[in-house]
């Protein structure tokens, strides 16, 4: 039984189709990132999953329970932890009172341990909390009953870098204990560090679901070459497979022209520069073979930033 199975989930508000026939499955024990820009429909899917809003068509199951049946969903919720993108608690209550309420309703297996990791000021009222502290309190309430499935909407929004780091480590160790984690994000850096698989949603439609590695492979690498002597641009344009977005730079590292721009100026195809940057989807061996005869000062090969992967997805959609 999968942790989450969605089948044609649709929410039609009349003027907006917030979710359009969304289907995917999140397996037990994986970390699934649900990605998309703001307003793409990520939160709508999560709200349907938890029964806050009802789908206008389609449906799904969480932990085997029908999300459109309140009684079944309540059974599932005993084993689900949820943290909204902007968690709100009773402001007049102290953190401790909030935890006591949650403990009374869903049980408390491990709040002590969680409080060592995320330490909101329990004796102060929530009114006095910073955003980060509200979020820490939220993380404790989300995990305190040792849920099987945790759903987080934009989880690291209000956390400082140290807390983000601690959160990422915590999430990975939870996954190793068998937790299933489903979270939404528009911040791609988070995804790459955390996810096993990602689903990408855009304008209410699911664009793709794939392992994060495949996504990164497809997105290629960013290559920067700095040579001692000018290298003809033709070797990247003609002799090497998988070069995209070729840019040439001067000795000081500033981009002086794109390769196409240079050609448009009537520069001979044989023009040469000392520095190049490009996205590369070919094999590294081929790249090295081509560069073998030149004296290099620097060569870096890095994973492409996920932002550009994202852009490629959205770009191609736009072109279509």
């Amino acid at each position, binding site marked *: 039984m999968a942790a989450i199975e969605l089948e044609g989930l649709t929410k039609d508000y009349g003027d907006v189709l917030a979710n359009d026939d969304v289907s995917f499955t999140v397996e037990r024990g994986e970390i699934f990132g649900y990605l998309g820009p703001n307003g793409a429909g990520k939160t709508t899917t999560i*709200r349907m999953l*938890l*029964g*806050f*809003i*009802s789908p206008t068509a389609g449906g799904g199951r969480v932990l085997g329970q029908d999300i459109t049946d*309140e*009684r079944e969903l*309540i*059974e599932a*919720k*005993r084993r*689900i932890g*949820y943290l*909204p993108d*902007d*968690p*709100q*608690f*009773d402001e*007049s*209550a102290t953190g401790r*009172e909030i935890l006591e*309420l*949650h403990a*009374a*309703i*869903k049980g408390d297996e491990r709040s002590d341990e969680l409080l060592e990791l995320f330490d909101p000021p329990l004796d102060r009222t929530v009114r006095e909390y910073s955003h980060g502290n509200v979020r820490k309190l*939220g993380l404790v*309430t989300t995990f305190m009953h040792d849920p099987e499935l945790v759903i987080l909407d934009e989880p690291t929004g209000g956390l400082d870098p140290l807390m983000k780091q601690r959160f990422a480590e915590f999430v990975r160790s939870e996954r190793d204990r068998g937790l299933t984690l489903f979270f939404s994000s528009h911040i791609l850096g988070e995804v790459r560090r955390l996810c096993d698989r990602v689903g990408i949603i855009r304008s209410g439609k699911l664009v793709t679901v794939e392992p994060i590695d495949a996504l990164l492979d497809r997105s290629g690498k960013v290559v920067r070459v700095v040579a001692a002597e000018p290298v003809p641009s033709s070797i990247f344009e003609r002799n090497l497979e998988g070069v995209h977005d070729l840019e040439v730079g001067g000795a000081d590292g500033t981009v002086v022209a794109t390769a196409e721009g240079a050609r448009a100026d009537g520069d001979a195809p044989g023009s040469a520069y000392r520095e190049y940057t490009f996205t590369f989807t070919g094999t590294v061996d081929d790249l090295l073979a081509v560069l073998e005869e030149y004296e290099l000062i620097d060569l870096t090969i890095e994973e492409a930033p996920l932002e550009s992967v994202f852009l490629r997805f959205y770009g191609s959609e736009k072109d279509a």
Partner: protein
Amino acid sequence: MLEIFQYESRNRVRGSVYLSIAMSLLAALVIWIYPSFSESFDDVDEQLLQAYPEEVIRLFDVQTMATLEGFLAFELYVFGWVILLGLYVAYLGGGVIADDVERGRMDILLSLPISRARTVAEKYASLAVPIVVVNVVTPIVVYVSAELVGEPISATDLVAVHALSIPYLFVCAGIGLVASVVVDRTGIAQRIALGITFGLFMLESLLEGTDYEAVGVISPTRYFDPNEILLESTYDLIGAAVLIGMTLVLVVASQLWFTRRDIS
């Protein structure tokens, strides 16, 4: 079970104490001025009630001011309980659900393994705290004050008027609850609750004795009459049962509505 009820009830204790103090002060004030008020007339009803416009007499259901009971029935119970307190609990009821929805707190609450119907019922039930506390504290103050000014009143009638006001106040709170599940914005829900509660009071008061008197059956004020309790020692238990029935209808309707709606 009842975790939300307990939590919400605890939150309402402080406000209920303040409310009780305020209503007790009102009660003490009314009783304190009564002797000098009644002494300044040879016949209060003859001299004063004649001076009031007929509409006011009918609106507030003024029967007599010649006794402390009659004076209290009008000044404290019709005005203070039926109108002021009725409006106040309707206002509180208007915030029960809408406030959590508007402030985004409902999401975390609904992610807990409890049904929406139970959430509505338990949050509504926490309004019992102000309703009961004010009706326990104030009669003690009324009784003692009446003794102090030398105008003792019947303890039984006093207990009855407060006990029978409880179902009335629950109906007012129930009107607020319905507004609270239907509308997302607290301010609007509360205004709707106040408007409906006051409108029903006016409906019953103004239509009484007219051809349209029957329309008043939908008004909770028809089923709670402080004058009849304090002046005649008549306790309308059927009226109380009607009020309890109205409360149940309002709560169940709120539950059904809230269970079916989207929380966005």
